[in-house]
Structure formats: structure tokens, C-alpha cells
């Protein structure tokens, strides 16, 4: 059992980090191990924002190996050199925790080659690349992660997030949601459920050059959709295709720079409550997530089995 939440403001920018934190905190009982945010923030759209980590959080519940900060420093230097080799320019850099960073970079070439080069450094993983997407995930509940990364200050139009109860993989950042839709900029996915044809799909996608950073089945959705879009499918087409290609029980959200989508498997075995008005769509595993930002009486509903919906900002 995990909790997922998402929202999109169609006509304005708000304090999206703060709103998503409230929604995810309301779902803490569904997943206390780790929390992740994919926030689509207000930027000038000029530079790529790259969030990456060079190590793991060894906090409560984690089975990651404790490493010295000097080890992280060495890996960061390798990342910096790789960026230079790629012809990318670092415009701004922030160290958010000893093991995680936020870079603003100038780069205009292929993101797949870029990602392979950056992630060639040991224990280094790009959490996200985009001109709007800020993907943050770490061990702890929504409030703890929000405070650790100052997310309540981020404004934007839409966001998705995840409160994780680790089941089929470890308590660590690499297995936490959301997952970036490698190698597409600004694509992220969160998922609640279980995929039963994970390895079959993974082997096929790896043979096509797609990369997996974890053994979490949810990562498959991000890679699956990315591969469909790489072939020319729209986001909605890829999502509809996933209802046939992915086996199991699931509800997932996917977000891009200007859209938010949801898909529910054909058995409708995983919960989702949805509120939709002219200006706002808010959805979550439980209604209390929506109520955390909309306490007044509202009309909500459960999407049906096999339903796919996509909204634009």
C-alpha cells in the first residue's frame, strides 16, 4: 500500500510544494518509508534543472551503506568533469544534503547520451532533468522531506507525489518515487500497485537501450511511457497502451511540463479519488488528501476501471 497525490492548477501558479506536502502528509499512513515530489515550478525556461544524488540516505529504515562526505565530494567532482566534457555549463549549483544536488545547466544536445555520461560516476543517479521539473525524493514523511529540501517555497502549476511503503524493494532513494521518464525532460511518474510482468518488460526495454536505476516495479511505468513517446506516441496514447502492456493492479499519475495524467488498470483494484473543477484538478489515493487543500464540501468521484485522463495547464 502506497499513497499517491497530484494536482494541477489550470490558470495560475501557486505554492505547489506546500499544497502537495499537505496532500502527501494526509496519506502518511499509506506509506511512511519515503516521500517524493515532482514539482513543476516557475522558471524562465532557459536552462535545464538537474537534480541528482551521489549517495544514499542512511536514515531510519534504510539499508544503504554509510559513506563519508569526502566520498560524495569526489563523485561530485567527477560529475562536474563529465558535464564539462559534455559541453554543458553549470549556471548555478546547490548542495541540498551531503548526497544530493540541484544544478542549473546550459545544454542543448541529446539527453540520453548526457545521462549515460553523468551516471557513469559511481552511485550517481539523475533524479530528474527538465526546464520546469524539480524531482525530490528521500527517506521520511512528507513534512520531513519538504523541510529538508525547502519545498514549501517552490511555486508552480502542477505536481505529483508519493508516500511509499516499501514492499518489493528497499527503503532507499533509488527505489522511492517519483521516477523520471528517462531520457525525456520534464516527465515524471508515481504509482500505487504491483506490476506482474516487470521483468519481461524490463528485459525488452533494456534491449532497446532504456536504463533502469532500481528494481522497483514502478520505474517500469516511467521507462515504458518514455519508450512509447520516443517512438512518437503522445502521452495519452502511451498511457492507453500501458493498460494492455502492463500487467497487474495499478493506479499511476504521470506529469509533463504542461500536463498531468492518470491511468487506472482494468481491474480497478487500486484506489483513486478525483476532484475536478474548471481551474483545478486534485486527486489522491484517499479523499482526505484532497480535503487537506479543499476543506469545503466538494464533489469527488472514483474513476472507473481502465480509465485514462490527461489535463493541460
Amino acid at each position, binding site marked *: 500500500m502506497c499513497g499517491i497525490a497530484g494536482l494541477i492548477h489550470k490558470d495560475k501558479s501557486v505554492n505547489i510544494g506546500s499544497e502537495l506536502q499537505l496532500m502527501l502528509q494526509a496519506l502518511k499512513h499509506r506509506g511512511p518509508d519515503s516521500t517524493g515530489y515532482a514539482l513543476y515550478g516557475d522558471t524562465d525556461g532557459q536552462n535545464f534543472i538537474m537534480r541528482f544524488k551521489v549517495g544514499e540516505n542512511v536514515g531510519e529504515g534504510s539499508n544503504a551503506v554509510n559513506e563519508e562526505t569526502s566520498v560524495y565530494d569526489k563523485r561530485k567532482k567527477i560529475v562536474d568533469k563529465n558535464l564539462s566534457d559534455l559541453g554543458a555549463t553549470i549556471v548555478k549549483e546547490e548542495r541540498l544534503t551531503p548526497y544530493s544536488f540541484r544544478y542549473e545547466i546550459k545544454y542543448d544536445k541529446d539527453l540520453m547520451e548526457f545521462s549515460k555520461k553523468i551516471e557513469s560516476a559511481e552511485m550517481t543517479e539523475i533524479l530528474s532533468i527538465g526546464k520546469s521539473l524539480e524531482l525530490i525524493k528521500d527517506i521520511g514523511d512528507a513534512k520531513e522531506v519538504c523541510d529538508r529540501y525547502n519545498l514549501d517555497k517552490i511555486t508552480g502549476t502542477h505536481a505529483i507525489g508519493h508516500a511509499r511503503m516499501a514492499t518489493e524493494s528497499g527503503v532507499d532513494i533509488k527505489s522511492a518515487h517519483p521516477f523520471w521518464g528517462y531520457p525525456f525532460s520534464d516527465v515524471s511518474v508515481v504509482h500505487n500497485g504491483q506490476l506482474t510482468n516487470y521483468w519481461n518488460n524490463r528485459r525488452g526495454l533494456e534491449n532497446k537501450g532504456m536504463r533502469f536505476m532500481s528494481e522497483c516495479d514502478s520505474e517500469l511505468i516511467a521507462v515504458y511511457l518514455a519508450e512509447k513517446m520516443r517512438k512518437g506516441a503522445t502521452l495519452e496514447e502511451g498511457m492507453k497502451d500501458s493498460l494492455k502492456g502492463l500487467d497487474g493492479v495499478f493506479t499511476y499519475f504521470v506529469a509533463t511540463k504542461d500536463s498531468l495524467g492518470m491511468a487506472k488498470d*482494468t*481491474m*480497478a*483494484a487500486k*484506489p483513486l*479519488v478525483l476532484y475536478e473543477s474548471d481551474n483545478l484538478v486534485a486527486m489522491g489515493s*484517499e*479523499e*482526505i488528501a*484532497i*480535503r487537506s487543500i479543499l*476543506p469545503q*464540501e*466538494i*464533489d*469527488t*468521484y*472514483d474513476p*472507473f*476501471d*481502465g480509465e485514462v485522463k490527461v489535463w493541460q495547464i
Partner: protein
Amino acid sequence: MANLKTTGKKSKAQSMGMHTEVLTGRTQQKFFNPDEAENFYYFGTYDVDFNKRTELNVKDMEAPEANKKIDSLMSEGYGTIVIKNPQGKHSLGVGILNKLNLIFEGSLGYFGVGSCDGPNVRINGRVGWSCAQNLMAGKVVVEKNAGSSFGAAIRGGDLICKGSVGARTGIDMKGGTIIVGGDAGAFTGFMMQRGRIIVLGDVGINLGDSMYDGTIFIGGKIGSFGSDAVTSDLTSSDKDWLKRKLKVAEIGEKFDVSKMTKIVAGKKLWNYDNLEPTEKKGAI
């Protein structure tokens, strides 16, 4: 722990090779004796006055506290209780075992009014998953939409949703009636054993999958039939019952019931014999 004992007398199930042992000693298979009615005490019930009305604001309460407060108000004789600001909280109004007018001014989360026996509930909002699970008797009306597993395992009473409901409506139901004014999701009536489901709108895939018994009436389109679910002729008594039920439920009174599709168990996969004793609730 119950004792296991082999009996000499063979029931139908035993003759089919099933249930070769019966439980004796402390089991749930107790039967209510009407001669002992005066000595019978139904735990957790109160004499309430429907004209005695009060309001309860649960905005800042957790569900256990709110439910204890409802119980406390019933013990004081309040027969009409209005719950303000439920705000989608889970497990509100559960375990009410006597007559009561219970009105929620807002929406409920999961497991709302579960395991009840007797109350008349109106929810002026929506409900999440598993609303009225295990309802034994009474009436629950939901003014808006409902989540999945609506009326799971109910044994009696009327459960009405004026909007649409999610998947697995009436899963494992053993009696009572579920009425849906809008559409219903996949697996409606999944493994139902007794009772009736009425859906005025469309239903999703696998309708009545693995149903043992009971009847489903659908007014709209059917996504697909589940295993062992088949159509049956709509009789004049079915139509009369549907008209009466929809009128009492204050929903779809003008609906043309003659166009409804009736679905029953095909019983090709049928190996169900041990029906639920109606006296069972007397033993609780």
C-alpha cells in the same frame, strides 16, 4: 477452539464430498430461540427517541472519538444525530446496532457506516471505499458518488447511491438490496451469494463474476459478463418489485424497468450449499 466431529447424517454438500466435518462447541452457528426473547440482550443498543435531535461537529475529532461520541449520544436517548464536517474521514458511524436517524452533512472516507444493524443513514456527500460493509439491516442513502466495494458483504437492508459507484459493488453480498442511480464499475456483484443489485446506468466488465446466487438488474449497457453470470427473463413480479423498490428508494421512480436486463448465476460452476442462516445476527 471449536471441536471437530464427524457426523453420520449426510447433507447435500457432504454427499458431494464437501463438509465432511461440522463444528461443535463454541461456534458462530447459534440459532435464536424466540421463546427466550425476553432474556435476550442485544449488546450496544439503546432506546432512542427520534424526536430528540442533536448535532455533532467532528471537524477536529479522530474517527474513534467521533464514534464513541455518537454512541454516547445514543445512550442519552438521541434518536436523530446530525454529523457536521465529516470531511472525508474514514470509519465514521460504524458499528451502530439500533434504530437511529443518522445524517452526515458532508462526505465520508473509507469504511463509512460499516457493520451497522438498523440505522437509517443519509449521507449528503460522497463515500469512499467499502461503504456500509457488512450492513445487517437499515437504510443507507448516499446523495453523491461512492467508491469501490460499495456494500461489500452486506447481509440485509437497503443501500442506495444516487450517483455512480466504483468497482466490485456488492462483492460477496449475502442479502439486502443495493440500488445505484448512476453507473457502476467492473466486477459488480463479484461473488455475490444472495440479495439484489439494481444499477440504472451502465456497468463495467465482468458483471456478476463468479456469483453464487442473487439477482442483478441493469438499466444501461453492460461491459461484459463475468464467469457463470447469465441473463434471465424479467418477470412481471420482478417489474413490480423494481418499481416498488425504486419508489421507496426515491430514485429513478420514472425509470422504465421493463427495459432492464436481469442477470443471475448460471450455476455451471456452482458448488455452494451452506446458505447464511438468517438467525445468525441473533447470536451476535
